[in-house]
């Protein structure tokens, strides 16, 4: 019995010592799990699938280069269906059940506002690639402690309007028409563009928003033509934009059209549109704008068989790249450390070098990060603005 009393603790100690290596093994960090929230079905599936493709490409490239801090990046994807309630519940699932470290998304402004609350409650980093409403950054500014985990990579509506106004100013026009889709951010964009262009002495001669249910393209096209603008700014990034361009051009209008991007940035769609007048498209980046942009576009084409549109794919790619860079800069996948890294760092990506202001909005419209305007021509696109990148 004495022997047993002596040997039992010794045996337990030996067993514990033998199991030490496996404990040490469990300290090896697992993959970094990133949640991706995008509308993969429903009316916004086009933008959402490009969004997912771009983030997937970014994760694949990071993993091929050895991962982030030596850890594999795992994407956990959720389909928001373009609905606020689904986006919120999926964000909750990703943060609570899937235990993701950070979220990238959502796509629409309305969805993203819902997701922000989940990110704030779970203290998860949320990188917003495209949603443009001011509400996102206003929350960070007003209640920093709660919403400091939220960063927007894409341009805000005033920045967007400012970049478009710079281009329109270069064209030396005086009158423009604005046609958008009847959605929240399009209305905000129309308003901001009016303010930005007023400072340059450019006035609107027509402004309207068509309904996605019965777009009534023909009367809108007729009304635009009757006002004889020097340029038509098209705020709708969706497929309806292509249909509207057809209506305007078949009506005989030859004035330039400037699109905010999206569907009209797709080379396959642009190839079917009449080029009887200049067709410009705004984009975050474009092949040829920089070595990084060209590498990205070529990699995207190889991976998915079509060219990126420069907006709903490029910005999510940059969002993912930025997040990986911030984790590396922080030295660990910890929300507070990554927030500090994002707040203080400068992060090169496809569109340029990203820095964030106090409201966690990426600072667009600077020489480091400014976007481009391309012009579709027979056989492809060329960069029309800024002049430094035009070819």
């Amino acid at each position: 019995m004495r022997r047993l009393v002596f040997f039992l603790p010794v045996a337990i100690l030996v067993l514990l010592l033998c199991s030490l290596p496996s404990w040490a093994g469990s300290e090896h960090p697992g993959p970094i799990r990133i949640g991706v929230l995008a509308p993969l079905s429903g009316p916004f599936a086009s933008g959402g699938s490009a969004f997912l493709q771009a983030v997937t490409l970014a994760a694949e490239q990071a993993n091929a280069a050895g991962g982030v801090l030596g850890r594999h990046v795992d994407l956990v994807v959720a389909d928001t269906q373009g609905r606020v309630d689904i986006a919120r519940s999926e964000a909750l699932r990703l943060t609570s059940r899937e235990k993701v470290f950070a979220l990238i998304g959502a796509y629409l402004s309305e969805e993203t506002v819902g997701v922000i609350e989940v990110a704030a409650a779970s203290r998860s980093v949320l990188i917003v690639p495209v949603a443009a409403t001011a509400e996102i950054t206003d929350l960070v500014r007003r209640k920093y402690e709660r919403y400091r985990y939220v960063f927007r990579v894409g341009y805000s509506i005033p920045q967007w309007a400012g970049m478009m106004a710079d281009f329109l100013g270069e064209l030396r026009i005086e009158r423009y028409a604005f046609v958008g889709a009847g959605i929240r951010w399009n209305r905000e964009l129309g308003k901001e563009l009016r303010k930005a262009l007023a400072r340059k002495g450019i006035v609107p001669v027509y402004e309207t928003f068509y309904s996605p249910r019965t777009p009534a393209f023909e009367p809108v096209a007729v009304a635009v033509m009757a006002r004889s603008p020097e340029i038509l700014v098209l705020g709708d990034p969706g497929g309806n934009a292509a249909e509207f361009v057809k209506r305007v051009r078949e009506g005989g209008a030859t004035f330039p059209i400037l699109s905010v991007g999206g569907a009209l940035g797709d080379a396959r769609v642009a190839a079917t549109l009449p080029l009887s007048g200049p067709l410009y498209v705004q984009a975050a980046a474009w092949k040829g704008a920089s070595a990084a942009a060209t590498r990205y576009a070529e990699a995207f084409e190889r991976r998915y068989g079509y060219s990126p549109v420069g907006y709903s794919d490029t910005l999510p790619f940059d969002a993912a790249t930025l997040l990986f860079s911030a984790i590396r800069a922080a030295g660990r996948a910890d929300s507070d450390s990554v927030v500090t890294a994002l707040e203080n760092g400068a992060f090169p990506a496809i569109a340029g070098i990203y820095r964030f202001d106090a409201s966690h909005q990426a600072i667009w419209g600077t020489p480091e990060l400014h976007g481009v305007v391309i012009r579709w021509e027979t056989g492809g696109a060329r960069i029309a603005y800024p002049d430094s990148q035009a070819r």
Partner: protein
Amino acid sequence: MNPFAQVLLDGIFTGSTYALMAAGLALILGVVKVVNLSHGAFFSLGAYVAYILSANGVSHPATAVVLSCIIAFAFGVFLGKSFINPVRFHPFSVAVGTLGFALLFEQAAQMLWGPHPASIGAGAPWATVSGIVVRRWGVVSVVASAGILAALALLLSSRWGLPLKLIAEDEEIARSVGMDVEKIRYLTFGFASATAAAAGALLAPATSITPTMGRVPLILSLIVVIASGMENVLAIFLVAVGLGLLSNISAYLLAPQWSYVSLLTVICLLLLLRPEGLSGTVPGRDY
């Protein structure tokens, strides 16, 4: 260019596109007596057939129309025989089932051809008369809708259309004289689906092709059928053109958002004042 004259002409063209879709929908309502919410999916199917042919160098619209009609007819017969006929006495099941089929098609289209908008070159306008543009797709719509509706009217007034009229009037009598009512129903469903696909194939160059593109035409054609009733083929065409004009004029004179509001207002007023439809003669319709 006189802008208002252009708006009026475009209104006629727009109305013709409604009529194209409404023709098949009215046939299904009249003969099969179900509300078919998958009609828009067949419209999308036709547009995708046209797109695929165009992408492969076959741009003649007749090829797209014929091929899409064949495919849609086959799908329509399958759907009519395997699903609609067994549950057609349960309107809720039919509505949910056909809506489910439409959503299934949308998902399949997204998986097969991607969610990105596709487009086909629309070509130059057909003509310009005194500054008024005669849009190519508009001429196609008028000719095709008038043709389809005239063919339907001819069919219904001929010996071949007698079974359809009899089934629409009284199925029991049709059955008692030896007609295969079930077969005629699913063949009608197939034929109506083919007309929707033909509409999609013909209008594809004018639109942006997406998996969900059939939703709006479905709603608009339902509005036309509710307003016109399904008894009179000419009434379908005239009501469709009237609604097209109303839609375009209100969009031009007020704002684009008023286009939809004005259509829905007309429907609400019609349902209140004349529930049997403009051409209907039987009060208290059961759909």
